[in-house]
């Protein structure tokens, strides 16, 4: 539970100080620090949602407890829902805590994003879920020797998400890849709201569609990995 507050605080301090430095260099200072701080807080939602799902599984493997779960009447779907729920609760707690710290330290109010914030949060959570399911599916197949993915996979899409910079700054070929990354639309529209005061919901709809597609694929992958583990024996996964 401590990590829900620890990492967000550390990120806010490091990126906040960086933002303060940029504030001194540019005229457009207020929006820059807002962009960086809101980026930290919003990206943390995806990171937490993903890692809480993956670490939920990994902790059961560390504890040798996975069998105890699946010799009980618990169903696969109930287990997945429990991991997602835990992830949502911790993500929201971490988000609220981060928003409070950002306001206290930098006078940045994330709730400025008003009702759009809820849309952003939902889309970012969805990305965290399919990433979490993908990592869990891989860990189920290959065991804890690939557990590092639980901490690293999410960062693979972070450069493509354009959290702290506009997508247009990336090379064209990277931009072409980024259109398949749902989070890139969220951060682009966050900046759109910040600089132009509008949100293009058509873009967010693309993000939603991609998230749904990836969620279906990742749940299928997870179920498939679980079935393949049952063929080897759940006791052999560690």
């Amino acid at each position, binding site marked *: 539970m401590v990590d829900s507050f620890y990492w967000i605080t550390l990120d806010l301090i490091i990126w906040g100080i960086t933002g303060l430095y940029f504030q001194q260099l540019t005229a457009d200072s207020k929006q820059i620090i807002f962009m960086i701080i809101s980026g930290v807080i919003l990206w943390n939602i995806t990171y937490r949602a993903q890692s809480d799902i993956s670490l939920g599984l990994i902790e059961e493997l560390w*504890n*040798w407890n996975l069998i*105890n779960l*699946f010799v009980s*009447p618990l169903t696969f779907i109930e287990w997945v829902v429990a991991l997602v729920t835990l992830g949502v609760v911790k993500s929201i707690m971490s988000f609220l805590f981060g928003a409070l710290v950002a306001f206290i330290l930098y006078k940045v109010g994330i709730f400025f994003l008003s009702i759009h914030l809820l849309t952003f949060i939902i889309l970012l959570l969805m990305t965290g879920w399919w990433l979490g399911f993908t990592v869990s599916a891989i860990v189920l197949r290959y065991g804890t020797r690939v557990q590092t993915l639980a901490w690293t996979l999410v960062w693979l899409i972070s450069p493509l998400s354009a959290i702290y910079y506009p997508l247009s700054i990336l090379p064209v070929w990277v931009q072409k890849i980024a259109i398949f990354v749902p989070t890139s639309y969220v951060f682009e529209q966050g900046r759109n709201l910040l600089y132009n005061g509008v949100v293009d919901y058509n873009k967010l709809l693309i993000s939603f569609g991609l998230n749904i597609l990836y969620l279906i694929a990742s749940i299928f992958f997870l179920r498939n990995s679980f079935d393949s583990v*049952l*063929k080897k024996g759940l006791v052999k996964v560690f």
Partner: protein
Amino acid sequence: MDILEVKNLTKKFDKFAAVDNISFSLKEGEILGLLGPNGAGKTTTIQMLLGVLTPTKGTIAYFGKELHENREEILEKINFSSTYTNLPWNLTVKENLTFISYLYDIKERSDRIQEVIDNFRLKEILDQPLRELSSGQITRINLAKAFINDPKILLLDEPTASLDPEIAKFIRDFILKQRDEKKTSIVFTSHNMTEVEEVCDRILFINNGKIVADDTPDNLMKTIDETTVNLVIDKNNEKPLLDYTKHKNWEIKYEDRQYSIHLKEKEIAELLTFLSSKNIPYHEISIDKPGLEDYFLKIARKNKFREA
């Protein structure tokens, strides 16, 4: 009434058959011992019975219903304890039991938790996280977990491993009490043969993935016709005895002033007639009856021989 019925159960890993077309059943209130050498297929069988390993072939039916199709309904009524699983180490004993009670959706939760706490003498360690406990204490908690839903069928994989003799005896008595009072059926594996003899009504001997024997402990022991006769005789009578055992091809050992002669049970009379005819007096005599361990060793030896 059979409450567990296993038919033609097979598990192959690539071409290797870990469990090879086994069939057996379990009656209400019966304690069935699953025995066999390491790698015989016991754990594979138990895992398939729990639904955490998919069989290659065959069916498993509890209470007349197929496990695969009625998983949740069946698993509510069974439970399991083993040395190769653990409960979360960071949670306290009470937190673990509470968590498990939610998994089984137990009614009157606090009463039931209190009951297993009392039954397994966990009161003193209730607020301690599992990481601080000894292996014996953790085994008791695993057993408490296994009994928490008052199961109709229990699968116990070495339930008394790492327990001190007093607690192990207590657990054995508890298991027998559950069987007598609540008609709980139990599938039981152990390497402690005395324990198996004491607890099990019936034994399935598994070797190379196949059932090689299915009988009561008494009947299995009867199939061992070899025995050991221990004698104390004067040293000056040693030669005729040694000559005779050599002639009969019986194995003889001398240890602690005592001769131990390994022979078939029906040959005991022949040995005693020989001693009497040669006027060889013995000061002490005892006969080691064959036990389940002898049966186990016989099967294990056969296995080794086949592997060689």
